[in-house]
């Protein structure tokens, strides 16, 4: 093998596939040996970098813990909906005093109507016919 490693051979080498032919070439070719060593070092730095990045791995938590607030919130919402369904809001309370007043007024009007001897439209005529203080 006289030429330098091609892309496929280079990848094979880095993946750990090292047939005798490649080993022999890398053993004698300074350029390929340097290229392989540089890339190998770079992958080593990458490994160290990722490992150091995750070295401060957060402490494991109980897996359900993060769902608890959501469950509580969901439960509260469900309870609220159930309460609204079972106990719908009452209509506004009626003002009793006003009703009582209006009833009194109505009774007085009815009493006044009943107390008349003749319909209202005939009252002037009745006054002419029947002197004051006399009944029919």
């Amino acid at each position, binding site marked *: 093998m006289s030429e330098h490693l091609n892309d496929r051979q280079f990848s094979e080498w880095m993946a750990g596939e090292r047939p005798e032919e490649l080993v022999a070439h890398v053993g004698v070719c300074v350029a390929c040996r340097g290229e392989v060593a540089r890339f190998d070092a770079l992958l080593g730095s990458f*490994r160290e970098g990722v*490992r*150091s*990045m*995750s070295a401060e*791995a957060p402490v*494991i*938590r109980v897996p359900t813990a993060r769902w608890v607030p959501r469950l509580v919130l969901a439960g509260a919402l469900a309870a609220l909906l159930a309460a609204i369904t079972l106990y719908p809001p009452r209509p506004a309370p009626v003002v009793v005093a006003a009703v009582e007043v209006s009833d009194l007024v109505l009774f007085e009007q009815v009493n006044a109507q009943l107390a008349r001897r003749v319909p209202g439209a005939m009252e002037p005529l009745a006054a002419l016919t029947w002197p004051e203080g006399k009944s029919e």
Partner: protein
Amino acid sequence: MERAAELTDFDAVVAEYWPRIYRFALGSLRDKGAAESLAQDCLLKAWKARDRFRGEASVSTWLMQIAVNLIRDRIRNRRLQFWKRTTEASVDDLIVADGKSSPEKAASARQQLAAVWNATASLPERQRTVFLLRFVEDMDLLEIAAATGLSEGTVKVHLFRALQAVRAKVKGAGQ
């Protein structure tokens, strides 16, 4: 089985494998919050399925198998959850300062490392998984095949392609 017996002390399993699963998830998802959540889900799944573990593979490979599947699902679902907040891991978190190199060399090393980080992010999911398992987790091809459910030959193909893509990006960044 000796391997299955390892699961009887699950606290020890969590202590040993939690950082590794978190690291693999972080490399795959680039999101610290999602990686933490996924590592928790992975160990919870393992805990629930511990009675079914027969020890055909090592505990480590079995856990990585669960993690690989969860990551695949998470990536699929993430496309539908674009509104979710992320705590993105950036290349700045990755840089390891050695304090020995000249500023020029340090800058060049940083540039190349950033190129590898960005290249792995743009790899197809399977290539990225295989690449991370090989070069960050130091797993051999057979272990990767067991963890991913792929044949050894397919793992090789994904690894070669990933290496070619990463190398091309690094060259482009000025190696």
